[in-house]
């Protein structure tokens, strides 16, 4: 369950190597075990240079994918997970966990406690999930609250110290790296009684519990007979419990109004101590019917100090919140577009913002736009071949708005204009972004009565709801 080495590589397309190793750490005691366990099939962890080259090639991130290369492009070279075999110096290094997020490649090599030939199934290697957690942890640390490059650099420079705390010998102790930062600061606090390792200290001050529910909806509306429209709500409940005592017991309940949409696919934070079987089995896999469990959803738990995601859920609401219609007609160099949007009457008509993005792909720059909108205003980004329809804070009383117009394009020059594999010819889409404060689509809520605390003092409870929306 240990890691032999960890790397962070920034992807820099256009540079000679296409990337730079920003951080690497090797674990020689684990390497020593790997040598014994893997026996004749042992392949040593390479130096940074060769590793970088091989990984970028395998991930198709080096610039040389013009020609067919059998070792990468062969039809039988199939990767179904984020775990790769890298060809380095004639030997194959396996398993290498690697994925890219925000231009940064996260990679590590877990220890396999047996011979590598024949390759054992990944499911049998404990180091695989541990490796993923380590990389997710590093990623979470680097991007929590990080806004620019200098902040990223500061965090990168803290990484060696943090890993010395959370992963001193290659075996991960805590995937929450921020926790370790705290524990360095809390180190002088004595532990009077048994305390969870994931709780670096104890809270002193006014008791307070805050809960925030955020829902996002992902919807695809095709307006075609043979393809069904889809819309799914994804919710996350974030909590922060400031309570005294080393292990306060708390029960948080989420409730639905009578016409609310049941929560499904519920995944909880590990601090939740037990789960009702109805919560465990309520799932989007089953066809929806009236017998679905509709709460209240009770989560007994011992909260950590920091803010945490109590649970994730999905839900299937009966109708999409906004129904869209988008039509494109090609007339020589012009495109004639028509858009109608209708807000469902059950949805709160008060937005923080609401806009529709209408991109055009595989064409030249926009040279001319003639348009008519029934509401809001249209902005044109010629070079990006993009129109943005700013709808604002409210739909009109009729709840229906429309846009029509013609867009003229200039000559296509390959490098600059956006390319897309799907939006060819008359295939196009528009994307709707909006946010509604203090509202959930499912109706899911938490209030004063939702929190039971078994500890001294009555806590102040604050809740908020947030609803984000993306429609395609």
């Amino acid at each position, binding site marked *: 369950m240990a890691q032999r080495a960890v790397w962070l590589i920034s992807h820099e397309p256009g540079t000679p190597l296409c990337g730079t190793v920003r951080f690497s750490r090797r674990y020689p005691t684990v390497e020593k075990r790997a040598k014994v366990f893997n026996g004749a099939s042992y392949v040593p962890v390479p130096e940074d240079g060769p590793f970088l080259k091989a990984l970028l090639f395998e991930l198709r991130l080096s610039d040389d994918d013009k020609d067919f290369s059998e070792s990468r492009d062969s039809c039988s070279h199939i990767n179904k*997970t984020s775990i790769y075999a890298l060809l380095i110096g004639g030997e194959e290094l396996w398993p290498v966990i690697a994925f890219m997020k925000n231009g940064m490649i996260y990679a590590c090599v877990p220890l396999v406690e047996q011979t590598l030939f024949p390759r054992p199934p990944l499911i049998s290697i*404990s180091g695989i999930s541990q490796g*993923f957690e380590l990389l997710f942890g590093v990623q979470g640390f680097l991007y929590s609250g990080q806004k620019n490059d200098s902040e990223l650099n500061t965090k990168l420079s803290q990484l060696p110290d943090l890993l010395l705390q959370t992963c001193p010998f290659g075996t991960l102790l805590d995937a929450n790296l921020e926790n370790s930062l705290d524990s360095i600061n809390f180190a002088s606090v004595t532990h009077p009684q*048994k305390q969870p390792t994931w709780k670096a200290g104890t809270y002193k001050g006014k008791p307070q519990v805050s809960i925030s529910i955020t829902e996002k909806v992902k919807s695809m509306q095709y307006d075609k007979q043979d393809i069904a429209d889809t819309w799914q709500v994804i919710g996350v409940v974030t909590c922060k419990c400031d309570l005294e005592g080393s292990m306060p017991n708390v029960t948080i309940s989420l409730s639905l109004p009578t016409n609310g949409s049941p929560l499904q696919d519920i995944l909880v934070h590990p601090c939740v101590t037990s789960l009702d079987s109805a919560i465990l089995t309520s799932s989007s896999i089953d066809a929806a019917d009236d017998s679905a469990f509709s709460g209240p959803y009770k989560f007994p738990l011992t909260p950590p100090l920091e803010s945490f995601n109590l649970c994730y859920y*999905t839900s299937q609401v009966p109708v999409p919140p906004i129904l869209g219609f988008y039509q494109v007609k090609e007339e020589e160099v012009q495109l004639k577009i028509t858009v109608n949007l209708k807000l469902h009457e059950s949805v709160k008509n008060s937005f923080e913002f609401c806009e529709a993005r209408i991109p055009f792909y595989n064409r030249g720059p926009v040279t001319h736009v003639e348009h008519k909108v029934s509401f809001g205003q249209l902005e044109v980004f010629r070079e990006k071949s993009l129109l943005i329809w700013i709808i604002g804070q409210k739909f009109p009383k009729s709840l229906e708005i429309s846009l029509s117009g013609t867009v003229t394009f200039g000559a296509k020059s390959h490098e600059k204009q956006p390319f897309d594999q799907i939006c060819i010819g008359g295939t196009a889409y528009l994307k709707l972004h909006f946010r509604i404060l203090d509202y959930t689509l499912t109706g899911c809520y938490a209030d004063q009565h939702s929190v039971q605390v078994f500890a001294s003092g009555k806590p102040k409870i604050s809740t908020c709801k947030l609803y984000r929306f993306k429609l395609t």
Partner: protein
Amino acid sequence: MSSRHAAPRQGLACLTMGPTSRETWAQRLGTFRASPSAFMAGPEGEDLGRHLLSDLRSEKLSEPTKISLLALSLEYPAQLWPDAPAAEAAATSLLDTLVLLPPRPSALRRPLLLAATTALAAGGALGPTSGASRRLLPLLLGLASGRDLGRSFGPASEQRTLQATAWECLRELESCKPGLLGGCLGLLRGLLGQEGAVQPLSLLLALALRNALVIQARARAGLQGLLVAGDWPTEGGPWNWMLAEEGDAHLQPQAPSWPAAEEGECRLATLELSPEEARELRAAVAQLLDASYLLTPVAQAQLLWLLGWALRGLRGQPPVLFKPQLVRLLGTAQLTLLHAVLALKAAFGEALFTAQDEALLLRRLTLAAQHPALPLPARLFYLHCLLNFPENWPLGPAGEEAAPLLLGSQLCRGLLPSLLHDPTALLARLHLLCLLCVEDEEKEEKGQDQSPRRYLEELLAGLRQRAALDGGPRALATLCFQASYLVARCLAGQPVVLTPLTHGLAQLYRAQPALAPHFVDLLDRVGPELGEPLKVVLRQEVVSRPGRDEALRWHLQMLARVADGDAQSATLGFLQAAAARCTDWGLQQALLQVCRALLRAGVGGGLADLLQALARQLEDPDGRDHARLYYILLAHLEEPKLGVALGPSLAAPALASSLVAENQGFAAALMVQEAPAPIRLSVGPHRAKGPVPVLQLQVEVLEQVYSLELRFRVERQIYAPLGAVHVPCLCPGRPTRPLLLPLQPRRPAPSRLAVRALYTTPSGLTCHARLPPLLVNFADLFLPFPQPPEGAELGFFEELWDSCLPKGTESRLWCPLGPHGLEALVSRHLEPFVVVAQPPTSYLIAIRLPPDSRLLLRLEAAQADGVPVALRTDDWAVLPLVGDCLRGLSVAG
């Protein structure tokens, strides 16, 4: 004992160097990290380890600089201290530095503990004879258990932070040397009941418990009261190495830790526990599991893996202990926890999971594999777990991916692939879809509309449409062919899927002939179910549209792969038409490749005419020559001979038929290729004769090679540079003579030889391979003294014995003996060096250590279990080596 005295002296010797400045170190560390191997080969490489150790004590360097030095030693101990004695000396020096720190708070203590642990464990020095080990272990245990170690270890508050570190160090040492803490199990259990750091203690106890169970099962012994509290080991006092010595030999590749169902009888079943021991064990496991909620999720997962492993197959230990934890774990989004549950499922099967539990687990796994709130890599791993799910009663062959029985198509609705998915996700989900298609074959026949098969066809069509895009990235084409390959492999028996696939691919070729290399690759890899019909339609596709295509070179490349005896006239017609347009060398070669393919397929008459025409009409003389050669072969050779003549040995490996491959072939023939090692080298029995030590290298030949040149590089330049060894030819299966490699030591010490091989393959390529390094042991350097005249042996030995002092040193040690006693030990390992022998109890041994040292051993008054050894040498530096060597011999028997 010898090594204990020698090591600190080495450590002190480095103190005489002047400290290096902070800037110099920063620059040096930077260069080192950029390429450790290049740095170590350079002028500064050899002394880096020594400088680092001495500068850690320098007062001029700041703490951050020292921490950066320690960080380096945590990552690269094998480069800094490449052998066990050096690692031992380094660990000793690090411990000395730790002890010498002033009592005020210091950020150095923690990294020093980690570094000393790493040096010992990674350097292979951990053991009962290592002085550093005997210092470090009680120190760690004392710090970990929170016993006050006096003011020398900083203020009490710092000791608490060191406590967790010490537990981690102990765990790492136990991982590298299973059984090391076997004697402390009772102690650890006692501590777990008290307050303090639960996580490190739980993990260490679980690991030590598992290791102890495995070792005792191998030895067919019980737990022998190990779980009941024991005494504290003290610094310098005896440490219980019994289990570790037992276990050390067994840190070997283990049987897959993922148990197959039939492996239920695994090794632990041999462990005989008394009812009392079984009760103690159950109590210990329950204690660990009850506190597991206090651990971080990743640590909980580690604990479950360890305990699952420990109890698997153990008689009288029902896994119900785990049950209370499962519901809590199944609800989480944590990858490690769900993975650990799967491990328990695999370990205990029906004993822990009923059929309903299995169904619930599958449901949660399916849900996790498609949950939009989880990151993609996690979802993909869950999908992998789904296809490798450890079922209670698996139906299919073991080791093959399959959809579990309880996973119906209803459950998989949310796991269908779509064009909008990332390629990896698409392929993973496509595989699942294929497996469902196999299952649904029967329902298909009833003609359902929304069948998985129809979905599959639409998806493949969409992929082909994208691959046909002009100027699209190659990844799109690759994805389309990977998907086609996956479908062809999973659904080989379903013509109803393969027929539309074949036609779809033909259409794709028509739209985008530049994908020819992908088609050739696909044809090379799929079975005949898709391969044969695809070949036919692709050939038709090529020959039916002559003339108007710009993509002639792709057509020719394609045809070279698909042309055979069928549809000769159409093929020849196409080639005749094409010949006129083959104006450049590349196209002509491609054309000739097609002719060659036809020749091998046994096409006769029409081809002769074409070749004759080509021999006249091609512009390029090389092309004309080839055409003429093919014509002559066709005209004069019978078909079977023709096959041989055109077989792969005739020409370079460019025969794979593409132009690109042809060019690559030429380039490859001119360049040195990096290749896997064609031979295996090992050090054979020691030859103790001649003026210098000579290594006998045994060769195991894996592939035929010619003109082999072996180059050796001595690590740390302990020996003079070695000459290359040349071998004209090696064939697998034929006996080989050992290769002799004379060594010229600059000082008598073991080392490693890096080995590289340069050779020519039977196909004429020049290749370069790195072989695993060879270890030269200390004993490999032993040479005998010239034989003294008969009768003068004793005098000769005594004279040598006396000559060692005062320059050298004397030491005594106890050499344990195996069951065969001293006589066997001497005759097996020391025979050539015996000067005076009085079997079976007494031997006087004189060993010459090149370049100019000597080692004299008196093995006298042997007892049943060991023999006292008096030794003298004129070179004090060899003392630690001798100790290790002698004990090594006795272990080897």
